[in-house]
């Protein structure tokens, strides 16, 4: 039995697969408990799971958590939406028109290696410490990668699909709207799912520097006041929000692209 589970590429029962994931989670929790309840690590640095849970409930009921989530989520969403609204059409054009690729690929390929966080001082100089600065950090952190990934997705559209559409009478614009776009759409949704995850990472970076609200700010303040439980709650919440948005994107994917599955459901 055990030998079967450790054979490369071999299918295992679904129950075993799910249990394996749960066990890893449990082991992590056990490790944390041993370190904290066992007094191995000073509670000033590592609080116990119960303390963290109590802090979470407290923060939830006094409203601090929800208002910070609301603020942070708005920043992530707006920064990311702007990146997607420009990145998707630009990426599609770059993936299908050589002239657009030639014009934009070099500069985007260059800028994406510049760390978005290093732009923060410049952004503060340019647009101050307001909301648009936070959103700009998220935009900078996601836009360039997103555009290049959409370009790749578009490039991978099977060339024969485009050719056959020409022989069926499609005009250039129709090739974009009736062939390239629907063919690339699953890849586009998947790219959005992945880059949205990155947006959360940049949110914290943006809120640690010069913010007065949001989850990143809450974490930073907790550090100043030696509240590791609050830091952990903040980190967990960001993780959960990331997971949630990931699941939403996956649900959209499943609901929209049933044609990719043999059973059609």
């Amino acid at each position, binding site marked *: 039995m055990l030998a079967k589970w450790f054979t490369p590429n071999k299918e295992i029962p679904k129950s075993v697969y799910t249990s394996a994931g749960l066990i890893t989670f449990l082991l992590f929790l056990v490790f944390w408990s041993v370190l904290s309840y066992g007094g191995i690590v000073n509670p000033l640095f590592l609080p116990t799971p119960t303390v963290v849970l109590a802090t979470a409930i407290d923060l939830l009921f006094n409203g601090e958590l929800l208002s910070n989530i609301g603020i942070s989520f708005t920043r992530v969403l707006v920064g990311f939406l702007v990146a997607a609204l420009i990145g998707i059409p630009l990426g599609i054009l770059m993936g299908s028109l050589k002239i657009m690729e030639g014009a934009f690929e070099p500069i985007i390929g260059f800028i994406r290696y510049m760390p978005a966080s290093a732009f923060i001082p410049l952004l503060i100089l340019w647009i101050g410490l307001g909301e648009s600065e936070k959103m700009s950090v998220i935009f900078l952190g996601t836009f360039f990668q997103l555009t290049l990934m959409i370009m790749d997705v578009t490039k991978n559209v*099977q060339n*024969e*699909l485009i*050719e*056959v*559409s*020409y*022989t*069926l*009478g*499609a*005009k250039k614009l*129709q090739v974009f709207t*009736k*062939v390239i776009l*629907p*063919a690339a*759409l699953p890849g586009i949704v998947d790219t959005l799912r992945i880059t949205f995850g990155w947006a959360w990472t940049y949110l914290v970076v943006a809120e640690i520097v010069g913010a007065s609200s949001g989850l990143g700010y809450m974490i930073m303040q907790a550090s100043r006041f030696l509240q590791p439980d609050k830091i952990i709650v903040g980190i967990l919440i960001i993780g959960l929000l990331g997971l949630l948005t990931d699941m939403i994107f996956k649900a959209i994917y499943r609901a929209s*692209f*049933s*044609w*990719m*599955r*043999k059973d*059609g459901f």
Partner: protein
Amino acid sequence: MVTAATMNSPLIGTPKLEIKDVGKIFKTKSGETTALEKTSFTINDGEFVTILGPSGCGKSTVLRIVAGLEEATSGQVLLDGEVINGPGPDRGMVFQSYTLFPWLNVKENITFGLKLNGVSQKEREDVARHYLQLIGLEGFENHYPIQLSGGMKQRVAIARALANDPKILLMDEPFGALDAQTRNIMQEVLLKAWEESKKTILFITHDVDESIFLADSVYVMSARPGRLKKKVPISIERPRGFSVKGTVEFAAYKEELLSLIREESLKSI
């Protein structure tokens, strides 16, 4: 010498497609490679022509030039007396690889070209029904390509090309990826569709049996550089069923074509 082309076509001897001195040279780092030597031939209205050649002989290049998907280095292609310039719906194409739009179901795939042209929903339904019946896929109209076998996909691809009512149907080894049994059935499906639609067909293959079974004329192509070596008219009576493949007449054509193509295959190894 009774062929379907001469029986069916009132425009006997009218060239549907004229290929005049068409050649193709590729520029590579090491210089120029001639993919296709200047080639000329004509196809009559309603005729079924196959081009037979070893792989890499440039037979697909000919087809792609006719389709307008590739530009010839020299010469021109005339369809109904008019020079072709780029791809268009007057030349339907079926590829070897599966090219159904995976996000559209069978019916939507078949009527893709009609919808682009703004044909009404009602008319599209009628056309779809007709071609589904012709290719024997009634009941599959709402299936998506992923749910179809390779043979079914190619049937739909043929229906999609025909539904657009092109002047000529171009087929680039459409059954090349199918197993032998499916391939034989597909050949009969295609002949039935051809006899019913009276289309002119230019069909590329490297399969000798296939080229004889389908064609009014087989053009044998030579390799490196590609050029038309010989035209072999096939006068096997139509309509043809699978049993003609066992006849002495068929065997004689096969022997002739095999020896022609063998020389070419040896050259290209």
